């Protein structure tokens, strides 16, 4: 294995993903939903994974739980999580410990992931029993405190059914479930999509506070660049199963290097300035079947596409804390075998106004 030394990698990572590929069986053969992804998640850091539908962001998150649904499977690479080590082969009790014990997962539309027939408290006890918690009373007390911490009335919430709670409250209950077993890693899949603006702010504030208090390694998976811009320390942009850009949030927003990142930021209408400054990205995101099998996954929509982009998939090259996988942003073409660092040329960092 190549020794990597860059932003996506660090020594004290809570989660260490290397060369991860996840494939799904389709009518046209096995297709990679996630391909050759390297990513580290460190305590105290919020990583925002941004991507559109079909970018592989949710598949990547499910792989962290070793929970890729059939007909998908982890085809290559490794995922090390905290003390558990390599998790791609786990099963039984240790797998259960991973899911909930090490990694707390707040599901997409977690508003709808609660059991409508049981009170929140009963579901909490189920969780405790399935994880072999000895001190259930203590766990319920912790859950009440966590709920109180998030601005909910702990006792009332535990006695409630899901339909008695608003969308924002259910989302907080989802976070409570994710953290009640003291997970060190918190994964939130589209945490605010179904919420309106004010509830979104409230939920994001809570995530930020709990993240700080507990020193979590937090991952927010979203299609909403705004949420990531507001929350994340670090941005990882996915497209067509590839990680195409990674770097400190503020720098990536100010000076995006991958043409896709740049187009995404430019496609967001703003509240100030000329509305015409926003511009649409032509084409459409690929799905598993239309995904190019060769070359760069973004080339068909890319304004900077070069001849080499059709044949050679650009490897990620690094510059300090930043990484980008693009021939055009990088100046010199590189292949997966070529891990040389290249100074990014200014073309990738041109100012957009």
């Amino acid at each position, binding site marked *: 294995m190549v020794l990597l030394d860059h932003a996506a990698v660090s020594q004290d990572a809570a989660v260490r993903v290397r060369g991860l590929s996840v494939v799904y069986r389709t009518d046209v053969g096995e297709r990679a939903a996630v391909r050759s992804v390297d990513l580290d998640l460190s305590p105290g850091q919020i990583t925002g994974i941004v991507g*559109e*539908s079909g970018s592989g962001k949710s598949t990547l998150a499910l792989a962290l739980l070793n929970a890729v649904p059939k007909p998908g499977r982890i085809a290559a690479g490794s995922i090390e999580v905290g003390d558990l080590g390599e998790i791609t082969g786990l099963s039984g009790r240790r797998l259960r410990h991973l899911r909930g014990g090490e990694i707390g997962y707040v599901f997409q539309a977690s508003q709808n992931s609660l059991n409508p027939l049981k009170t929140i408290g009963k579901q909490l006890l189920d969780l405790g029993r399935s994880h072999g918690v000895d001190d259930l009373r203590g766990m319920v007390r912790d859950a009440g405190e966590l709920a109180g911490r998030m*601005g909910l009335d702990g006792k009332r919430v535990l006695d409630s059914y899901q339909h008695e709670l*608003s*969308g*924002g*409250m259910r989302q907080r209950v989802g976070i409570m479930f994710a953290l009640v077993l003291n997970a060190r890693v918190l994964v939130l899949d589209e945490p605010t999509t179904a919420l*309106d*603006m*004010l*509830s*979104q*702010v*409230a939920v994001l504030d809570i995530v930020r506070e709990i993240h700080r208090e507990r020193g979590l390694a937090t991952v927010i998976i979203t*299609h*909403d*660049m*705004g*949420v990531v*811009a*507001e929350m994340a320390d670090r941005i990882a942009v996915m497209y067509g199963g590839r990680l195409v850009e990674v770097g400190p*949030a*503020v*720098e*990536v*927003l*100010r000076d995006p290097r991958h043409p896709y990142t740049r*187009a*995404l*930021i430019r*496609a*967001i*209408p*703003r*509240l*100030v*300035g000329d*509305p015409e400054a*926003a*511009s*649409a*990205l032509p084409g*459409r*995101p690929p799905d598993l079947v239309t995904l190019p099998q060769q070359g760069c996954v973004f080339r068909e*929509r890319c304004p900077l596409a070069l001849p080499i982009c059709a044949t050679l998939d650009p490897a990620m090259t690094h510059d300090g804390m930043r990484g980008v996988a693009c021939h055009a942003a990088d100046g010199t073409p590189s292949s997966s075998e070529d891990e040389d660092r290249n100074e990014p040329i200014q073309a990738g960092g041109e100012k957009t106004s």
Partner: protein
Amino acid sequence: MIEATGIAKTYPARGGGLVERRDVVALRGVDFSLPAGGAVSFIGESGCGKTTLGRILSGVESHDGGRLVIDGVDVDATDKHKRRAAFRRVQLVHQDPYSALNPTRTVGNILGDPLRRRARETRASRGWVEQRAREVLELVGLEPDTVLPKYPHTLSGGQRQRVVIARALTADPAVLVADEAVSMIDVSLRLGILGLLRDLRERLGVALLFITHDVATARYVGVEGEIYVIYRGQVIERGPTDQVIQAPVHPYTQCLLSSIPVMRGIEEPGPDRLMPSAGPEAAEQDSPGCLFAARCPLATDVCRRERPVLTPIPGTGQEHACHHPAVRSVVPVPVG
């Protein structure tokens, strides 16, 4: 094009027995007007009544108070045929392009059905249906030859939403009501749909009623239009789009605008950012005072006693319903 005065709607209580019965007041007397070819946006949280209002204006829902005049026709004081003709001029673009199209019908049939009915009414020639279907597809930026024989599931979300818009255009509408028309669509495709709506307004003179919780998209489609901010069935602030965004005076508008994510690195938070003092569950049911008082960080005694009415601010075209209006700068400010 549309003149609405005092539109009210109450959904009667359902259930009974163990569940407490309580009528749901969706709209409390909304006045609004949409000029021909104009753009109006309704902004508010979920449950504020903005969707109900859009449905009433497009004839999908009835109102139980107030007067609605579409293209000079008072829809409550006319016969069935005239009412139907009036509402046909107002077409609703549904929120969810994944469920708004019949999965067992091709795009050709989806567009052909309403067109064939019109062809019967107007005794149009045989080729008219197909020709018109092609025209509306071209208007929404789709290639007729490739799209006509396709089923909805083979199209992307953005393409489906274009088909939904094309279907609305088959009625030659004077108004398009777009209810959260891009919330289910991929980010990179959203601007394309918004641009299309704007373009239809410019090219065909179709007025646009844009219902959303995202102020920035409302601004993109109608920067020279008007914004109505709706809270619990009442318009609490309205005015020219950029006036309301840059110089909002109602604390609720200010809270909504403050909640827009800041793109750190290229923007800074607005200096006067304001947040509600409580969540939506804090709202009291039957307070005689301001509907927002229970959540308003600036509420005083008078706010809890008396409900403010919409009051114009001279020289701005802006109106507000607040006892303590004050301009605050809350939206993110670009840096550099």
